[in-house]
């Protein structure tokens, strides 16, 4: 009997409608799975809101100290940046995803490989479902709280809205890909704690969670934005929604995200293929 793994083409003909149905079914199950963690969701939204207040006050004080506009941001833009950022944090899910690493460690990943869906695709579908749930429960509460207490910069140009939606979707995909790669080090390492810590450490600062990356000097900012996926995780969607730049730059940044999303998913596929070649599942 020939073995069927994700890297071996499945013995069914490619049917795009069937594929799409499978994808949405997995995404739907991701949505439902996360909707069972109600208390943790409430706790997370509360914490994001507290940090929203902390960061918003600090950045407004920075703007106040600099005489109003700082690094091209008005106070209203900064407030929007902080609160939408606190909402997006759980949607892109920067931290705390160890599902794949756990399954690699326990050997359960073997059953993922037996399925007729590529593991990267199936995990991505689950993650999109999760992000959809987070959009309702984790994005809305902090943003509404922020709107209640601070002046926001609402979009003036209508194309900003669809561009923001696209940018958030791409940010979720890129962030998923990064997390997948970090988790996939588990195929080679006994303990993924190291890569996980480095990711947690780097992603917050470099994605623009602690301060808008435009506060940095250009010689750091430009290479960071072009050569790493980090700004695409938060800074780009946030700069898009507050209309920090004119529309050509705005759409250019989203195009860059698109390139990163493709590159990272390709990377995930390559890593997965190489991992499957050396994977030995222990136990019975």
């Amino acid at each position, binding site marked *: 009997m020939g073995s069927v793994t994700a890297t071996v083409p499945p013995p069914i003909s490619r049917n795009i409608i069937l594929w799409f149905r499978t994808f949405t079914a997995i995404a739907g199950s991701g949505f439902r799975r996360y909707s069972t*963690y109600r208390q943790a969701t409430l706790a997370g939204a509360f914490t994001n809101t507290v940090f929203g207040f902390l960061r918003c006050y600090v950045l407004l004080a920075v703007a106040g100290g600099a005489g109003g506009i700082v690094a091209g941001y008005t106070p209203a833009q900064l407030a929007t940046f902080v609160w939408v950022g606190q909402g997006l944090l759980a949607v892109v899910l920067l931290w705390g995803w160890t599902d794949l690493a756990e399954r690699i460690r326990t050997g359960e990943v073997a059953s993922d490989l037996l399925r007729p869906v590529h593991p990267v695709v199936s995990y991505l579908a689950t993650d999109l479902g999760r992000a959809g749930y987070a959009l309702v429960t984790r994005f809305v509460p902090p943003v509404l709280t922020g709107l209640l207490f601070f002046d926001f910069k609402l979009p003036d140009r209508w194309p900003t809205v669809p561009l923001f939606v696209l940018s958030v979707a791409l940010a979720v995909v890129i962030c998923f890909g990064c997390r997948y790669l970090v988790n996939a080090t588990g195929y080679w390492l006994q303990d993924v704690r190291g890569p996980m810590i480095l990711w947690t450490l780097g992603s917050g600062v470099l994605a623009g969670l602690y301060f808008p990356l435009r506060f940095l000097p250009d010689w750091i900012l430009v290479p960071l934005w072009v050569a790493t996926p980090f700004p695409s995780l938060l800074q780009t969607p946030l700069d898009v929604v507050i209309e920090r730049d004119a529309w050509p730059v705005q759409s250019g940044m989203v195009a860059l995200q698109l390139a990163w999303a493709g590159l990272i998913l390709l990377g995930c596929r390559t890593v997965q293929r190489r991992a499957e070649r050396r994977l030995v599942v222990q136990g019975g």
Partner: protein
Amino acid sequence: MADRTYRLGVVPAYLALLRGQARSQASYRTSFVVDLVGNVGATVFDVLTVLVLFRVTRDLGGFDRTEAMVMVGLSSAAFATADLTVGNIERVRQYVRTGLLDAVLVRPLGALPQLLLMDLPVRKAARSLFGIGVLVTALALADVSWTPGRVALAVLAPLAGVVFFGSIFVATATLSFWWIDSGEVGSAFTYGGRDFTTYPMTVYSGWFRAVFAYGLGFGFVAYYPALALLGRADPLGLPAWVGWLAPGVALLAAAGAATAWRVGVRHYRSTGS
């Protein structure tokens, strides 16, 4: 073996726990080094964040960089040291959920000391040293006119901060006795408290500042001691001696946390898993 441990008293038992931890961590050397780097890195980034903010402004809430750095130093030295000594307690959440706490409670040792020794955070030591380094540098760069009183405060205030943050760690951990899935709520006060104390309190306003600074007591960790050290009047109008309240507030917090812990452990019902 169990007999002997009992005869020798509890201290060797705690030491055995500690040794076990040291051995288990020493067996994953690379992970240990990465952990160490990660831990120091987190605090380094916190300090760098403040420096980046001062790149784009000269004034934050009425304070310049050297003054603000004294608050940053007080806050990070106190937080990192508290995290080193009692930060483990955060894990109670998982222990309650998985039922591991049952095993801890049936042993003939105190629950709190055991939980603190169930992880040996040597990796966090470097972070604490870095925090203290920031404080010493900030005090050296700031124009402090040293008096015996200020020298005493410069030593007392970080210690009080350690006790205060330690109390916050313990108090937020007890939440899980009542609310098993409390998740990240604790971080809003532990890491949130660290963020709050990092900046001059004048940047916050309204009820938010009142709750965090006076209601929860975070104002007395870094802001007021820093004002007393720098000899600056409080823009918010409190008298100069308020900086000296830090140890008192810390003891009050410790008493509150101890009570909450005792009530919590008594309230604990195993999840049965």
